[in-house]
């Protein structure tokens, strides 16, 4: 008992730093990804499977239109976006779990800033999904993808993927805070996984019927994939880079304050 009481005084007096708490919660979120078989499947088996399916199964049946690219070269950048987006979207489920499972109450009675909880989920998601996307890229190389990127191109590729994961994770946290069940939170993955199909990612947009084609050409995934294709294959990017960057920045700038406001509402009642 004496020992416990001494600790009490010590614990009560010690102040932590926001960055230290954030680090501990990021480590916790990443630990979740290594301790279950489910998580390993999502993080490693999924990207491998998606890549194999696209390159082998669809590869023979889809023509790449006027781009003149091999299908593998045409498809890999888009599949990377799918992998990154799918993983990022799962952040919605993690967020909903924190809120509905009661963990948020535990964290809120600790002497830490409550904002560190969603922030840690987003940062952990970026770390995890950039790594996952790296795995998917390695698989693509094994399957015959031959990237031609310059060193600067590689750095920018990593930045674009990280930016996309950040934007999607921020939106996912917002969605996870809007819904009241983990099932509903899971629906976000579906949207994020489906969006690339309606872009110039899997099938060239020029082969789509009118309205669909207009949508495909103007939705954010198309310039994003164009940018990655340009960087990885060392081809001209044109305006796609700026358009993609604007979409990603816009998503973060809109989602973050909305999520923060929603989080404050859900934690003050």
């Amino acid at each position: 008992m004496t020992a416990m009481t001494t600790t009490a005084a010590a614990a009560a007096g010690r102040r932590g730093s926001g960055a230290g708490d954030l680090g501990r919660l990021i480590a916790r979120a990443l630990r979740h990804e290594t301790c279950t078989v489910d998580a390993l499947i999502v993080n490693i088996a999924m990207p491998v499977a998606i890549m194999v399916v696209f390159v082998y199964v669809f590869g023979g049946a889809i023509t790449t239109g006027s781009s003149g690219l091999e299908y593998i070269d045409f498809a890999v950048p888009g599949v990377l976006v799918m992998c990154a987006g799918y993983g990022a979207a799962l952040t919605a489920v993690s967020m909903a779990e924190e809120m509905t499972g009661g963990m948020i109450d535990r964290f809120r009675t600790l002497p830490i800033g409550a904002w560190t909880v969603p922030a840690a989920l987003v940062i952990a998601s970026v770390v995890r999904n950039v790594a996952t996307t790296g795995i998917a890229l390695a698989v693509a190389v094994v399957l015959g993808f031959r990237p031609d990127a310059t060193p600067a191109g590689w750095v920018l590729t990593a930045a674009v993927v990280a930016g996309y994961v950040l934007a999607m994770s921020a939106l996912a946290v917002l969605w996870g805070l809007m819904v009241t069940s983990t099932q509903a939170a899971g629906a976000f993955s579906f949207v994020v996984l489906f969006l690339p199909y309606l872009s110039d990612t899997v099938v060239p947009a020029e082969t789509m019927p009118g309205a669909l084609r207009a949508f495909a050409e103007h939705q954010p995934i198309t310039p994003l994939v164009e940018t990655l294709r340009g960087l990885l294959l060392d081809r001209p990017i044109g305006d796609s880079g700026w358009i993609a960057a604007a979409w990603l920045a816009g998503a973060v700038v809109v989602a973050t304050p909305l999520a923060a406001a929603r989080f404050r509402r859900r934690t003050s009642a």
Partner: protein
Amino acid sequence: MESAIHARGLRKAFGRARVLHGVDLTVPTGTLLALLGPNGSGKTTTVRILTTLLRADGGTATVGGYDVAREGDRVRRVIGLTAQQATVDDLLTGRENLELFAGLYHLGRREARRRAQELLERFDLTTAADRRAGAYSGGMRRRLDLAASMVGAPRILFLDEPTTGLDPRSRAELWAVIRELLASGTTILLTTQYLDEADQLADRIAVLDGGRVVADDAPAALKRQVGSERLVLRLAGDEDAARAAAVLAAQGEDARRSPGDDPSEVTLALHGPDHLRRVLDLLHRAGVAPERVELRAPTLDDVFFELTKAVAA
């Protein structure tokens, strides 16, 4: 002595449902207050307000001398909470859970590890320490949750139905831990459905009903307050018991079928020998003959039903 928890006139409504209207509580430092009340009476709501999880609509409260509404940061540095719903990370092991929380109390890596080990031993979790909490039994999760709320060695501890779901041995062990904490000066607010638990542990008992504290006193005083002895009439069967209760009620007697007990029993507070004669006369005239008549001292159950019967009726 300064009070560790002090609440005045706490009010809270959820939409149109008014849950608390004017709750007053005082818990002197180093004592245990048991908060009793029927389901939905607002025990958890009160605990959530005092632990800064919920904002009251009105009234004031201080915990450890800090205002819960304005000085939440300071309050959080001196409290621990075991919520009614267990809040541990199912994907982490028991040890990882405790080390995480110790880190968030800023204990430092070595100290965090030592503290986690100490609590695992104390709550009999050493053999399961390195298994995922999601694979724990209900009682083990409960114990891990309790350990987690003690990681920061709080001066003031809130336990919302801490022994629900524990087996008798675990319950006895938790009681021992609670007594130790009290002896070392910790202040505890505990909610419970078990009156014997309150009777065993509490310095004071507050009964919450209809959004207000309807009684707040030492266990012995509360028992005295509901009158002297209880008269227990055992009848031939349920129907006879119902008739007996009806006959007595018609004559203004406060007789009731013992809830939770044998349905062929009727219980009432007894005020002296004349009262006993009158009760037996009434039954005799109505042609209801009790099989057996017993006298016993009032229990906290009697207190509870007495104090909350207005709402139940």
